[in-house]
């Protein structure tokens, strides 16, 4: 028999290293010879999309097409510290560093262009890689021409900036601290499941997610993080476990260590709550880790709703479900 259940879980995640640990990112922007804008950042794109975020932010501030922006690959000898791609921090930290660098570059574009145009700063604007006087839009200089003119003066048109917010080290006895994390991301998930009481198998049918992320720089990639995170959460809830016996791993292969496949993928419905109210770039908060956290408890709660049995250890495998169902039946008899 298949029994339907649904469960809810709401989570918080304080992102960034926090706890008083120095946490910053440095980024710089310069003009490349091939009419490209070069962003230097050491932020590792592990598939989550930070480089896309960086391109969108730089393009937004400099009002150029994203295709114009190029990022040099991470290299300790060509970039400065961006911190890790972990702690759900890159959009917030490197996003802000790039935004600050782009704003610094834009200020310098206006500075040098105002000399060229014999104009005041407020009379200038930029669009599509050109800087021009607002009252004479056809009288324009491209960023690269301007960079060349600056170079002829013996100076460089580039900018470097960082983002370095402070957090407080918590009191070791109480954990108390005024600002332990830069901000929190909040997520609620509702999971709908079907428990097969004959096989013990749990099928996750649907996952609804509402995430308070401040602002999605790239909504599709945010949804990707949530859906990918939920799949890892399904693994944690229902099947994944490194089985160790006396320190020896018994399932060090993907035949015996199960992870969810496309067949385990539920339907997703996601709502992004965007109040643009954080200190992140354009109000954004991080979503990397929060995407996975609510899923396992939402599923565990849904299983309880379906069969009236609460599980206290993960993963909730078919074996455990069948054993618990048998105990439940024996108790009733």
């Amino acid at each position, binding site marked *: 028999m298949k029994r339907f259940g649904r*469960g*809810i879980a*709401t*989570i*918080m*995640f*304080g992102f960034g290293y926090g*706890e008083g640990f120095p946490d910053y990112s440095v980024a710089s922007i310069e003009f490349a010879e091939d009419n490209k804008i070069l962003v230097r950042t*050491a932020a*590792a*794109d*592990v*598939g989550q999309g930070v*480089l*896309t975020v960086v391109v*969108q932010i730089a393009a937004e501030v400099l009002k150029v097409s994203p295709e114009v922006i190029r990022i040099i690959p*991470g*290299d*300790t000898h060509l*970039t400065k510290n961006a911190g890790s791609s972990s*702690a759900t921090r890159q959009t917030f930290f490197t996003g802000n560093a790039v935004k600050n660098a782009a704003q610094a570059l834009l200020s310098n574009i206006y500075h040098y262009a105002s000399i060229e145009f014999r104009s005041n700063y407020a009379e200038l604007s930029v669009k599509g890689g050109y800087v021009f006087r607002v009252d004479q839009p056809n009288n324009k200089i491209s960023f690269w021409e301007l960079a060349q003119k600056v170079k002829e003066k013996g100076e460089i048109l580039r900018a470097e900036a960082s983002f370095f917010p402070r957090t407080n080290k*918590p009191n070791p006895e*109480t*954990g*108390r601290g*005024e600002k332990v994390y830069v901000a*929190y991301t909040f997520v*609620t998930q*509702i999971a709908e499941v079907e428990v097969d009481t004959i096989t013990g198998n749990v099928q996750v049918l649907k996952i*609804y997610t*509402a995430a*308070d992320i*401040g*602002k999605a720089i*790239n909504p599709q*990639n945010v949804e990707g993080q949530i859906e990918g995170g939920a799949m890892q959460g399904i693994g*944690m809830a229902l099947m*994944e*476990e*490194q089985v*160790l016996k006396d*320190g020896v791993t018994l399932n060090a*292969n*993907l035949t015996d*260590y199960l992870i969810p496949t496309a067949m385990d993928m539920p339907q997703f419905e996601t*709502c992004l709550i965007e109040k643009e*109210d954080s200190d992140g770039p*354009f109000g954004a908060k991080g979503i*990397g*880790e929060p995407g*996975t*956290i*609510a899923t*396992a408890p939402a599923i*565990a*709660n849904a299983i*309880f709703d379906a069969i009236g049995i*609460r599980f206290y*250890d*993960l993963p909730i495998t078919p074996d455990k479900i069948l054993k618990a169902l048998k105990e439940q039946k024996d108790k009733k008899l």
Partner: protein
Amino acid sequence: MSKMYVGENIIKVDSKEKVIGKALYPDDLSFEGMLYLKIKRAVHPHAILRKLDISKAEKLPGIVKIITAADIPWVKNFGLIIKDQPVLIGIGQKMRYMGDALAIVIAENKEIASQALRLIEVEVEKLEVISDPIRAIEKDAPPIHNNGNILATHYLEKGNIEKGFAQADLIVDKEYRTSFLDHIPLQVESGLGVFDAKTEVITIWAATQWIHDTQADMAQALGLPKEKIRIIQPAIGGAFGKREDISVHLHLALAAMLTKRPVKLTYTREESMITQSKRHAFIVRAKTGATKTGYLTAWQVEVIGDTGAYASSGPAVVRKGLYHCTGPYNVPNVKGVAYTIYTNNTYAGAMRGFGTTQMAFAYESQMDILAFELGIDPVRFRLQNAYEIGSSTPNQQILNTSVGVKDTIQEAARMANWKEESR
């Protein structure tokens, strides 16, 4: 202000290269005259190395060199927070889990390197294997590291926990357990190393989540100035926390330095699963009190985080779990303690959620049990306890901005067409 590119679904800038197969992951790279490495791993999870005989393996045609701890006395331990991880285990030293490295085999090809692994003879003095953190903290348990098996203890205290429980009409006291998990990124640990004899710079092409941190840790372990270690990031096939710790990097650097030839090391999936970091297995004892009208009064936790053989990010992971013990709910009285424990299991480090994922299973189960026992709809129960502007976290951080937790509950319930149920 309306925006042109922020908020738009721009296609990921690196997706085209990945989709058409042009993106180069570490194992796709090669250099002329490149040698291949394999690592001889521990033969027992907790033992003293008494003999390491590489003479037969060295004689195998195609073996260029086998590096043991005796060849590199100047090399120091490494580690993200505490430098407790040896690069190679020497004679008289302890192996503490099955992933510890005993020797670096360098060969003309992978097959010969694998053959040589089987020809290395190892003798050990076995010690008690500690695979359960509860056993690890017993007084007579052998210490895995010099300072005992409790690596770190962290505390949390807010309000008055006794008063909080006295105000409660219902107290739920449960124990939760989670397992060791592997991140299973598509790409296993892999990298290349090149030593430039002229500049004496070692260049490593390997995935890491933080190139400058890996550079610094490598430099201190090898006793070199930072600028002599260059790390270039190839395409990365997933990470999820597993690429925060050093994996292939130091073995590549040593092999490149000592052979003066380009070298490559790629783990097998089995090796990756046994050797590289895991999600901590947690034991969480949670005791939560609420009034009959459904308001939380007290929350107490005890956390035991099994960090395996080495510290990695362990103390920070378990601490962060502790600091998230109540979830996003107003609780005036909180008390907690968290222990990070060494065992002979695979070392545990960062994994997506960093301790808070395990903790969420505990606190959201507690919330569900309380709602059920109180006969209050679980959505309503969460809503009425959820943070708002001005709320105070377990760390007593006052949240002044961007507290959309209630919106998330309401929106999720709306999407799921959640009808309030009262039991």
